[in-house]
């Protein structure tokens, strides 16, 4: 006699009260393949955990952003935000699509140059630029975005020593209706500090002022804030022309577009609430075009969008290690990927999904990582179907920041694999091992 299909025994408490805000539960989403490659095959080949990056998603997202802006504004240039994901293979895709590089340290500047980016197509942001970094930037004709007066005077001194000109812009911080205001970077617009800095730069012999930059924050969910920022930069742009008879080349609105991840504490999922590229583009383009800047002198619009450009392309494959019950009877699950790999789990409710058909019964669960640390919580509350040890899961939208802010802690960092446009897989960063880590260490002989 054929045996019956087994299903784990389940008892669930019926809770009266406010119903689920989304009504009846939807069918459990399953991610069984990425760009046509089965998750099980990827895990057989590259182990667990493993980061997977889809080149197709990167290029599709870039094309969507480019279309949104270029259909509304005549001169647009994207610059890839290195800190969001500076794996060479990822940067190369963005450069291949036409992105410049946006770097925030000497290390990132060296990385962009080693990726073959022409120095004059590099934007050098950030509050920490040493004389050595500035020298490298000047020698490669990078656009240096000055963050504070000490940096301005160091730059003047460096250009004198080198007897070379530097191409510069200033970072402006301003009130765009987003609070708290990020006033720790750059020169303030409202109190006149930015205008003072501009006046000093315009008097400096070796500095060529070519642009204005702002970055109003991160995960900005209100597109209209960019319109306020663009208007204020347009005012400065025109003030420079009036006083110095000088047209700048560009206005840089920075990054900060929200990805479709859901912030912790958000009532609705990010995919429903975050503005689209079209909405950001509409707000920014309208503000600049309707400013007093004559159309023949419109600046190039620079955008340093990182998170919204790459988050969707990244997946983390992981495996169930254990199922447990807390003392309160709550279901908990341990997986083999921890917060040391998923920095964004601290502020997002990351989407965790099974890779194959599962039981229709879901239960509110907590998902822990494998670290022997109490903070290692990937999801503190998620409705998840019952799983067994060895089940393969997929965490989506992890392409931004996780592969730069990760840390080697307790476990090795895993393989990062790129699926190219032809569906071929490539390791783009090898899994660490004891040798690779110990190669940095020196143990004094006693």
């Amino acid at each position, binding site marked *: 006699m054929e*045996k*019956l*299909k*087994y*299903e*784990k*025994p*389940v*008892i*669930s*408490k*019926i809770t009266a009260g406010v119903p689920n805000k989304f009504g009846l539960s939807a069918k459990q989403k399953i991610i069984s393949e990425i760009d046509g490659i089965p998750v099980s095959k990827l895990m057989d080949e590259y182990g667990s955990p493993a980061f997977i990056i889809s080149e197709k998603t990167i290029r599709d997202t870039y094309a969507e952003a480019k279309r949104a802006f270029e259909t509304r504004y005549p001169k647009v240039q994207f610059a890839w935000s290195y800190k969001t994901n500076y794996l060479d293979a990822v940067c190369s895709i963005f450069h291949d699509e036409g992105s410049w590089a946006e770097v925030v340290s000497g290390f990132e500047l060296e990385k962009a140059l080693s990726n073959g980016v022409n120095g004059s197509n590099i934007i050098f942001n950030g509050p920490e630029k040493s004389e050595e970094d500035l020298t490298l930037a000047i020698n490669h004709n990078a656009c240096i975005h000055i963050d504070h007066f000490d940096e301005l005077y160091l730059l003047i001194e460096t250009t004198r020593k080198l007897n070379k000109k530097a191409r510069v812009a200033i970072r402006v911080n301003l009130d765009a209706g987003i609070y708290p205001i990020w006033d720790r970077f750059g020169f303030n617009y409202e109190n006149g500090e930015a205008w003072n800095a501009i006046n000093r730069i315009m008097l400096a012999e070796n500095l060529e002022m070519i642009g204005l930059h702002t970055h109003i924050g991160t995960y900005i969910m209100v597109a209209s804030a960019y319109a306020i920022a663009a208007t204020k930069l347009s005012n400065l742009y025109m003030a420079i022309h009036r006083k110095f008879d000088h047209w700048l080349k560009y206005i840089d609105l920075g990054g900060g577009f929200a990805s479709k991840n859901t912030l912790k504490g958000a009532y609705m999922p990010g995919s429903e609430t975050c503005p689209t590229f079209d909405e950001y583009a509409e707000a920014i383009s309208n503000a600049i075009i309707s400013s007093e800047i004559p159309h023949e002198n419109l600046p190039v619009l620079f955008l340093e969008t990182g998170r919204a450009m790459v988050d969707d392309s990244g997946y983390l494959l992981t495996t169930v290690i254990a*199922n447990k*019950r807390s003392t*309160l*009877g709550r279901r908990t699950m341990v997986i083999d990927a921890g917060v040391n790999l998923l920095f964004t789990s601290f502020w997002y409710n990351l989407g965790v999904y099974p890779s194959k058909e599962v039981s229709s*019964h879901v239960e509110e669960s907590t998902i822990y990582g494998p670290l022997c640390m109490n903070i290692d919580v990937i999801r503190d509350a998620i409705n998840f179907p019952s799983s*067994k040890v060895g089940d393969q899961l997929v965490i989506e939208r992890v392409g931004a920041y996780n592969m730069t802010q990760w840390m080697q802690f307790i476990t090795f960092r895993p393989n990062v694999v790129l699926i190219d446009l032809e569906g071929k897989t490539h390791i783009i960063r090898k899994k660490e091992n004891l040798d690779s880590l110990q190669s940095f260490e020196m143990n004094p002989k006693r």
Partner: protein
Amino acid sequence: MKITEEIKISDNGFVFNSKTGDSFNLNPFGLELIKQIAEDKDFASTRDGILEKYDIDDLTIEKDYYEFYALLKHHQIIAQGDPLDFN
């Protein structure tokens, strides 16, 4: 250990605890298992019966059985013994 007197179980898997007012849902296999526990059947004979009927291995049954059992205790469906009585 017996199912407490206040617990009523319907044939479609609805469980009501008249002492606490709590109610629960069981899936079909949970219902089958709770009935066997109510009959005071020991684990070994429950396991053998399941192995004969279902496509499953003995270790999975053991894990799931004891997790289910612990939940029944947690929800006060099975009478609580003294947890520190190690005899």
